[in-house]
């Protein structure tokens, strides 16, 4: 297709009228939005919005805490000190699974 035909095609498409909204369009939209939650004002953020804003930093902080805990456990085990797992086992044995308990 040559340039002239392309321009003719584009001009014809531009001139094609768009459909007109039906008379009940506005009412249908309003009915749909009445089922929605009220509009939040800019600056008034919900708890979820705030958590969402913190998301990347919170996720990295959680990863750092997990990594630190694992490194500490591994370090303690290597040094012969009872690790976190051993500690938990001891606590369970002493406090939770007492011989005459339930």
């Amino acid at each position, binding site marked *: 297709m040559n340039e002239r035909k*392309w321009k003719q095609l*584009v001009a*014809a498409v531009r001139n094609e009228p768009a459909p007109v909204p039906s008379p009940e369009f506005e009412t249908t*939209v309003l009915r749909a939005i009445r089922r929605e939650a009220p509009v939040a004002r800019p600056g008034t953020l919900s708890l979820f919005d705030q958590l969402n804003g913190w998301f990347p930093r919170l996720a990295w902080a959680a990863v750092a805490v997990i990594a630190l805990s694992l490194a500490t456990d591994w370090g303690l085990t290597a040094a012969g000190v009872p690790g976190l797992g051993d500690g938990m086992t001891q606590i369970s044995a002493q406090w939770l699974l007492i011989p005459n308990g339930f």
Partner: protein
Amino acid sequence: MIDDAEWLERIRNGAPDDFAEVIRRHQSRVFAILHRYERDAHKVEDLAQETFVKAWRALGQFDGRAPFEHWLSRIAVRVALDHLRKEKRRQNEIGLPELGEDALDWLRSDDEKSALDGRAAAEILELALRELSPADRVVITMQEIEGRSVKEICAAIGASGVAVRVRAVRARAKLKRALEKLVKL
């Protein structure tokens, strides 16, 4: 006359019915944008409804730095893009529609004065554009048909200027090939 900013403030202050005025002011533009991507009038109306509902949900994020009309247009383009993605999957299953006689005559004619009406032109372009990916289609439609700037396209589809330019060049070449294919039909 009350401007958009004032209407939006009233809506945020608890007068959701005032959104009707926002719909009245902008519905023609939203329909015009969506009509570039969907030819069925009923579907255009559904997409326009989706656009206004999404705008309503996101109204709290509108900070007034850009005109409301631009912000709403971006939502309409994104609704159209999602729609094209869904349609693309469906079209792969049902195949392509056929062109009408007027469109075929015009495509085959070498006569410079051969007339082309809007409906036939849209049929041809629609069929050729189906060869493009939804994002390519949005870029080429905004640039070639609507005459929008690269900056406006970037804002609408959330891509960088370089990405939009590259996509536009690639899409234009693909569209040209698709139109050549139609001429040979």
